[in-house]
């Protein structure tokens, strides 16, 4: 049995000399046969590192949203990275994405996850939701009529 262990950590500065940090360690057991295939092994390592990095980013985003100094979740705004506040998708955008995905027989949350690495539509930012609506509209035949823009 081959054991693969990767870890990732990140710390970001906050106002008033504070900081936010997150780290994660992942361990995976692999078939020993993979040791004789360096390309495949490297591929698995890279994938595991990507997963670890994404988990850290995700955790940090969550801390930033819920941490002190951020606006109430109800206002759908949060602290951001210090430049501009993050503004979450409007209720209308979320409704529109669900409606378009419904017509295209797509799972809206899964689509959002695949495109923007978020758990569900509610975590999309305003800009991400706009982009996703544009992309989805281009998939619909109705878009040929030029509506909505």
């Amino acid at each position, binding site marked *: 049995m081959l054991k693969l262990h990767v870890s990732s950590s990140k710390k970001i500065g906050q106002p008033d000399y504070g900081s936010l940090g997150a780290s994660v360690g992942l361990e995976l057991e692999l078939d020993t046969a993979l040791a004789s295939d360096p390309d495949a092994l490297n591929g698995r390592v890279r994938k595991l590192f990507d997963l670890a990095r994404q988990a850290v980013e995700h955790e940090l985003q969550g801390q930033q949203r819920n941490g002190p100094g951020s606006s109430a979740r109800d206002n759908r705004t949060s602290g951001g990275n210090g430049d501009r506040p993050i503004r979450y998708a409007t209720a209308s955008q979320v409704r529109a994405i669900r409606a378009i995905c419904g017509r295209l027989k797509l799972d809206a949350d899964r689509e959002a996850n695949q495109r923007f690495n978020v758990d569900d539509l509610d975590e999309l930012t305003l800009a991400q939701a*706009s982009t996703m609506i544009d992309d989805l509209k281009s998939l619909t035949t109705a878009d040929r009529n030029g509506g909505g823009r």
Partner: protein
Amino acid sequence: MIATSPARTSRTPSPNQRALALTGRDYLSPSAISSYQRCPLQFRFRYIDNLEPEFTSSSLVFGGSIHSAIEHHFRLLFEGRPAPSVDELVGVYDDAWTARSDTPVRLGKSETVETLRNLARRMLTAFQVSELSKLDGRLLGVEEELRGSVVPGCPDVLGRVDLLVHDHDSVQIIDFKTSRSRWSEFDVELASAQQLLYAELVAPLAEALGDLRVEISWIVLTKTKSPSVERHTLTPDAKQVARTKLIVRRVWDAIEGGNFHPSPSAMSCSTCAFRNACRAWEG
């Protein structure tokens, strides 16, 4: 024997909590504010005593139903679907009229439900062929609910924005209105208070999108033989915003102070849905 009692803390209720205790809502809406400005006693009947209005004016039901049809139009566009036909829009108007007719509808002298429906069809047709039914820019919201603290010491402001659109340099708040005649600059000025409050709520969103300018506009459909569809735009300036906030502050102080009295006016009283309650009011 030692007696214990639960620890107590004294805390001044927040403006939202005070609004909740007073009106059953933990916020102020722009329509509640303008209701108070129109007649403080009418505000009390509607928002504090929760009296049922004796009737609903046809203009209110008509405007709301046209509004529903236009909302439907933009919701379809938002979802990447083709614009609806005029017949479909009139169908939405009919449904909305029925839904709003729980309270008796008071029609005007020369009005019938059918003449109003014909007028609605003309207006919705004019809207459909107008360039204003095809917006430039990205839709961010249709009937989007916005809430936030706008005036320190006052309850949150909560309102619904008809349309929220953004292009490369601005976020636009668009309100649809029906009117007996074309709007003048004075009409824009009169209507601006509500939109200026919305502009304050939209400002953080515009900032998040890249410090965009906030613009407010009205799309006015006239209830005339040949309806017109026109857009009026205003870029809020700091002085107007400060004045609007001051008015909200004064109105809230007056509401909290229990300052409710009739405000007789030939124009408002003739269409007031609380006339009997007003006559019976003894202070």
